[in-house]
């Protein structure tokens, strides 16, 4: 697939109310932390929805870079390059 120089970020249903219902957003390559900053610039308040006061991802948000769990990579420092796909996933659990 030809790349347009961007990283494609998939937004799950639960977060689309913060992105004007956009399900996929093209961002400039960077670390996961930088991508979240870009999202927050475009959609003010987005960062506060997925990160806690300590600046870490909420424990019930999973971030995948090309099908790999960022938690097992370098977390917020994980680099997403041109053509990479990033997905945010809320945890689905209960009892």
């Amino acid at each position, binding site marked *: 697939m030809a790349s347009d120089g961007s990283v494609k970020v998939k937004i799950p*249903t*639960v977060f689309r109310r913060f992105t004007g219902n956009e399900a996929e957003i093209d961002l400039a390559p960077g670390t996961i932390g930088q991508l979240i900053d870009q999202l927050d610039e475009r959609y003010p308040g987005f960062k506060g929805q997925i990160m806690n006061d300590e600046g870490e991802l909420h424990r019930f948000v999973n971030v995948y870079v090309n099908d790999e769990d960022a938690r097992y990579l370098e977390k917020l420092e994980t680099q997403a390059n041109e053509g990479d796909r990033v997905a945010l*996933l*809320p*945890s689905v*659990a*209960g*009892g």
Partner: protein
Amino acid sequence: MTGANVLEMRFPQELADRMIAHCLDGRPDEACGLIATEDGAVVHIYPMFNASASPVRYALDPQEQLAVYQDLDERGWDLGGVFHSHTRTEAYPSPTDVREAREEVPYVIVSLATEPAVIRAFRIVKESWSAETGEVEEMPVEVLG
């Protein structure tokens, strides 16, 4: 249209049967999965692995969840709901279900406590998606025979 706009869950009989069969197969543990909708109608059931492997807890495996979300995109379907079983209790959200609810789609519960199984659906409405508390609102379920 997202699942959030659906006012009623309508299952074709075959898909309700598939969901119940997955729940029965999972015993004694809870079973779980995702529901695909198209224009508000249930079109597919994804039986999934319970990463908690527990009779009183369930959790989707995020890797499998990601694959299902990708499949939904490719097919043009919406995430229409989350389902899981209660093996010994009624089909009503437990305190854990309310606390852990994060997706804004209906949560469908299949109770295996009685024969035949009972299917009910709920919205768990929270002030913010990460809140620990929420209101439970039941929504009608219809199985189309």
